[in-house]
């Protein structure tokens, strides 16, 4: 049971997205807001570039010693009275969560925002077991109502506008006055807050994700802006954290270093509004907190990325800066990528998790403009890793036959300079002759992917090398 994957239909998804007017409008906002806010936040902090280096180094160190830190972390969770559940696969992770819910007879669970929950399709599994999951992050709540995947890793409903949300609320919140005014975003927020307040109090189990797992203390950390995470994990009797293995950092100091680049890169905030640290269940004398604290730790293919060309991807702290700055993401939005993780980080991570045979389009659908790498807070070389996926696809003959054929034809000539000069002189001469009247081509049989949308400028005629040598000969004769 994995959420429905449409990555193989990336091109069809993209075609639909490109003519989806509300989506295009929403993507226009991403293009402006996120970028400007990050830039301002980075400029205000003189040591920002240095902090990116240290965030990268901390994550690299943790990955080099992942086994050691995971074991230390587990010991410290246990010491604090918590329970650790190791899950090799999505299936095992779902089972671990379901087992806890069944044991306590849970009927509803509240959930903070978690990409791991999306990755393992936890909501579908809970519903199948007769347990009602309630997303409490506003964006996640909205897409749950719509039965959609998030389209962005930190702003799940960024593809929607307020009118669409209003009509979803009217459709679902039928117990409220149908004549109520929902024209202002704050009214939507207030309504969601009111509906969710009752759910928080009724929940049997609260499930959150984690931004960090801290080895030295056995602590899990979440950052949120809505405070929903705190209510999710404090009010029910049971708190279940779901996290993947690469969330580990050695110390509290390390986590606080990375926090300094996380929100700045994500939303341009200096810090998220809430940074919540959880260490074990409620202790005697604590004013609040859950009776049980569990962490389900997911591998799901990540450990097999260690020691490969893709290890650096495990540094990712899920800030979303790469997609916020990606021209392809701006054009097609998150859903076109066809699975949980969109944008440049998804283009590298998804093939690792669901297979390059399914996610093969994603690392190819990039212009390699490099803007993602230039803003990544942990300096992941995203274009380089997308290229590594392309190399694997080429080796496994997964790239389209037309691409392979074209490439082989071109490289045959490019590797034979004498033949190349002859062929290009003739080819360009002919093309220039055909294009001499208009200076451009409105259609070309071998480049329809180009000429369907743009004119193809005609060559000037002759090659530079030939014309250069002709000029030199004339010069020598004079």
């Amino acid at each position, binding site marked *: 049971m994995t959420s429905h994957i449409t990555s193989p239909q990336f*091109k069809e998804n993209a*075609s639909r997205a*490109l003519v989806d007017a509300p989506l295009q409008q929403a993507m226009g906002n991403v293009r402006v807001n996120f970028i400007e806010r990050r830039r301002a936040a980075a400029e205000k902090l003189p040591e920002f570039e240095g902090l990116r280096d240290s965030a990268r180094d901390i994550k690299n160190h943790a990955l080099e010693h992942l086994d050691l830190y995971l074991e230390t972390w587990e010991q410290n969770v246990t010491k604090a009275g918590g329970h650790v559940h190791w899950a090799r696969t999505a299936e095992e992770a779902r089972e671990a969560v379901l087992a806890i819910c069944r044991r306590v007879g849970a009927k509803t669970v509240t959930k903070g925002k978690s990409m791991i929950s999306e990755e393992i399709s936890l909501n579908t599994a809970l519903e199948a077991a007769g347990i009602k999951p309630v997303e409490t992050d506003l964006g996640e709540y909205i897409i749950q109502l719509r039965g959609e995947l998030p389209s962005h890793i930190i702003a799940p409903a960024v593809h929607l506008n307020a009118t669409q949300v209003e009509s979803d609320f009217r459709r679902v919140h039928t117990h409220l006055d149908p004549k109520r005014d929902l024209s202002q975003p704050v009214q939507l927020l207030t309504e969601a807050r009111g509906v969710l307040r009752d759910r928080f109090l009724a929940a049997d189990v609260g499930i959150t994700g984690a931004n960090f797992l801290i080895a030295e203390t056995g602590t899990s950390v979440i950052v949120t802006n809505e405070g929903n995470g705190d209510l999710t994990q404090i009010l029910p009797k049971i708190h279940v954290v779901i996290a993947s293995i690469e969330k580990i950092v050695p110390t509290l100091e390390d986590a606080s270093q990375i926090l300094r680049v996380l929100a700045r890169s994500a939303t341009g905030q200096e810090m998220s509004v809430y940074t919540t640290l959880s260490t074990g269940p409620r202790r005697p004398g604590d004013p609040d907190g859950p009776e049980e604290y569990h962490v389900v730790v997911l591998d799901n293919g990540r450990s097999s990325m260690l020691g490969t060309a893709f290890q650096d991807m495990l540094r990712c702290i899920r800030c979303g800066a790469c997609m916020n700055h990606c*021209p*392809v993401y701006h*054009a*097609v939005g998150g859903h076109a990528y066809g699975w949980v993780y969109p944008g440049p980080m998804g283009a590298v991570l998804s093939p690792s998790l669901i297979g390059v045979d399914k996610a093969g389009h994603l690392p*190819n*659908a990039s*212009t*390699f*403009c*490099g*803007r993602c*790498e230039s803003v990544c807070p942990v300096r992941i070389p995203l274009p*380089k890793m997308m*290229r590594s*996926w*392309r*190399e694997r*696809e*080429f*080796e496994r003959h997964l*790239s*389209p036959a037309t*691409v392979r054929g074209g*490439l082989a034809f071109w*490289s045959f*000539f*490019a*590797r034979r*300079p004498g033949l190349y*000069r002859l062929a*290009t002189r003739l*080819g*360009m001469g002919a093309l220039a002759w055909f*294009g*001499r*009247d*208009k*200076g*451009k081509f*409105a259609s070309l049989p071998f*480049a*329809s*992917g*180009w000429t*369907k*949308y*743009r*004119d*193809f*400028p*005609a*060559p*000037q005629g*002759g*090659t*530079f090398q030939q014309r*250069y040598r002709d000029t030199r000969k004339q010069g020598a004769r004079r």
Partner: protein
Amino acid sequence: MAPHSASSPPSRPRVALFATCLVDLMRPSVGFAALKLLEDAGCIVDVPNQTCCGQPAFNSGDRASAQALALQMITAFEGFDYVVAPSGSCAGQIRRHYPELFEGDPNLIRRAEAVAAKTWELTSFLVDVMKVEAVSASVAGTATYHDSCSGLRELGVKAQPRKLLASVEGLTLTEMNENEVCCGFGGTFAVKYGEISDSIVGKKAGNVTQSGAAMLLAGDLGCLMNIAGKLSREGKAVEVRHVAEVLAGMTDEPPIGVPPQGAR
């Protein structure tokens, strides 16, 4: 990324001009403009036999072809003081990615690194190495400049073309919005994902037109052909040229996508 260190050059350095395959095939006048700029700066310029730097193969995952073409380039160009290309993308391929291609080959990586270290994009070579302060060219009009991705982010080309353009008599530079955003070319991407590429270049063409400039300049022919093709399809009369043509004062050739005079 900081430009790599420019130790003081020999007074008349021997420069190999790498025209790039697009200039060689599509727009030879850019090659002649580069040649003039380099010679005016005091370089002794040669044009070794050349085909392509191999970037299309490299970015398509065909590592073996990319290595073969890189080795062909290295062999043809390693004997010169400098290698200069009128393209940030092709210069970036040599400078940033050739060493990557030969990682683990102790002999070839040294040769790849040596060529990489002396390879430059044209405008940054003129300004950072040859210390050119001004060009002697006169082109009347307003221009806007698109920062091509590889030049900007791999080689730190940003101020250099603007500095030289400021010295062109009669030319005013008007910056467009989002001048550092990709034009959607991306080599084979423009054909493989034509529809997405079109959406991206549509935004770029919009920014170009909105700037009000009569001329669009950039340092990479791939981007220029893409944007020129879109502007032309939309019927926008913006003159599109490689920055070298303007810096060399060689604007007698028709702009990109415009037929020679008298042909109509």
